[in-house]
């Protein structure tokens, strides 16, 4: 053992305890820093939501325009029918064969049912739908539906969490400004409780 006087040990304990006291203050401030980050992230989320709503409006406008064009074009269908029908009769078997080959290789489960279902689907489809890129329009409409569903779910979850967090952060623990680090007084038991956690005013009451 190094020869260290009890006075020096006492002084070291005092200095060390002051440091710990400061760390307690830092721990409480750590809670408040995380709170600030949560508040900041929520503000960013709200502005992102605003951008999302604008982008949704633009997208919906473009989708409506697409649907209008498709409706007007459908009204004119019948032109070039012979050409298209002839090509369609050769397109269908190729499409079915390609798709079933893919399905058997990648999807592995029951190709039989899918093959029959695909046959029916192609026989009921018209080459005009193809020529108008009807599949792309339908794919867009499906995406639009799915994206709305995703946002609704996220909004619902954020809404619940935000109201709880708002209430939590209204508590005095988060709103009070803690005085600078109090001078560490090891002997006064009342001060043994770090002011930052139990401000004197609370005990005074």
């Amino acid at each position, binding site marked *: 053992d190094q020869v260290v006087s009890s006075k020096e040990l006492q002084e070291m304990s005092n200095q060390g305890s002051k440091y710990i006291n400061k760390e307690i203050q830092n721990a409480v401030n*750590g809670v408040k820093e995380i709170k600030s980050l949560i508040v900041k992230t929520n503000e960013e*989320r709200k502005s992102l939501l605003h951008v999302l709503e604008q*982008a949704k409006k633009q*997208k919906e406008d473009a989708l409506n325009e697409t649907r209008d064009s498709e409706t007007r074009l459908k009204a004119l269908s019948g032109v*070039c029918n012979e050409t298209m029908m002839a090509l*369609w009769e050769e397109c269908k078997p190729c499409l079915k064969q390609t798709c079933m080959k893919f399905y058997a290789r990648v999807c592995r489960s029951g190709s039989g049912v899918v093959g029959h279902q695909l046959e029916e689907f192609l026989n009921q489809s018209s080459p005009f739908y193809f*020529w108008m890129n009807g599949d792309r329009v339908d794919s867009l409409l499906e995406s639009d539906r799915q*994206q709305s569903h995703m946002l609704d779910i996220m909004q619902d979850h954020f809404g619940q969490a935000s109201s709880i967090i708002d209430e939590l952060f209204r508590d005095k623990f988060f709103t009070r400004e803690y005085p600078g680090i109090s001078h560490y007084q090891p002997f006064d038991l009342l001060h043994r409780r770090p002011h930052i*956690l139990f401000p004197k005013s609370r005990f005074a009451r």
Partner: protein
Amino acid sequence: SLLPYAPFEPLNFQDMFQPFFDMIRQAQQAMEIDLHSPAFRPPQMDFIAEGDEDNRAVCREIRHNSTGCLKMKDQCEKCQEILSVDCSANSPSQEQLRQELNDSLRIAEQLTKKYNDLLQSYQWKMLNTSSLLDRLNEQFNWVSRLANLTQGEDQYYLQVMTVTSRAPDSEAPSGATGVSVRLFGSDPMTVWVSEEVSRNNPKFIETVAEKALQEYRRKYRE
């Protein structure tokens, strides 16, 4: 205020901090969302899928209503020929309408992709908020523990018991100084301060206290 003040009876920290933990837990549960559920699988759009798209989605679409097969039209020559049939000779207005449709379709596809990207950013905000709530919970745990610990009767938060030089066979770094301390009245622990920081250096005791707190927090996390 969530923290009921108890001016005279002994402070029960569990009760005092419990409301905070309950609310943080409720907020965490509210944020729990299964981002792998079908609702959160980004929509499959062949005009966007580069390279090897998510095959499971195409399989699902083929099973669901066969439209997934139409995405393979590029692999069939006669299907491609349908797309290039030019009806303008018979009906110029039809051809023009088709051009308008393709133009608005392309814009709608771009805006749908842009919206998709924004939705992904929004999901990231959710994940970010969730991890911040986890951090808040952990930090609160530490603060409530410190509040509890500072109620002991010990005269000091950190009591320095002995200061020793490194024993020849010890695994501590050579020249290091060993300081045995009790933190918040816990069992004594020894922290080693390297020889660069001598006992007379003002940083010495700070280094001791910092190491002791780190060790304490590590044990508490375990």
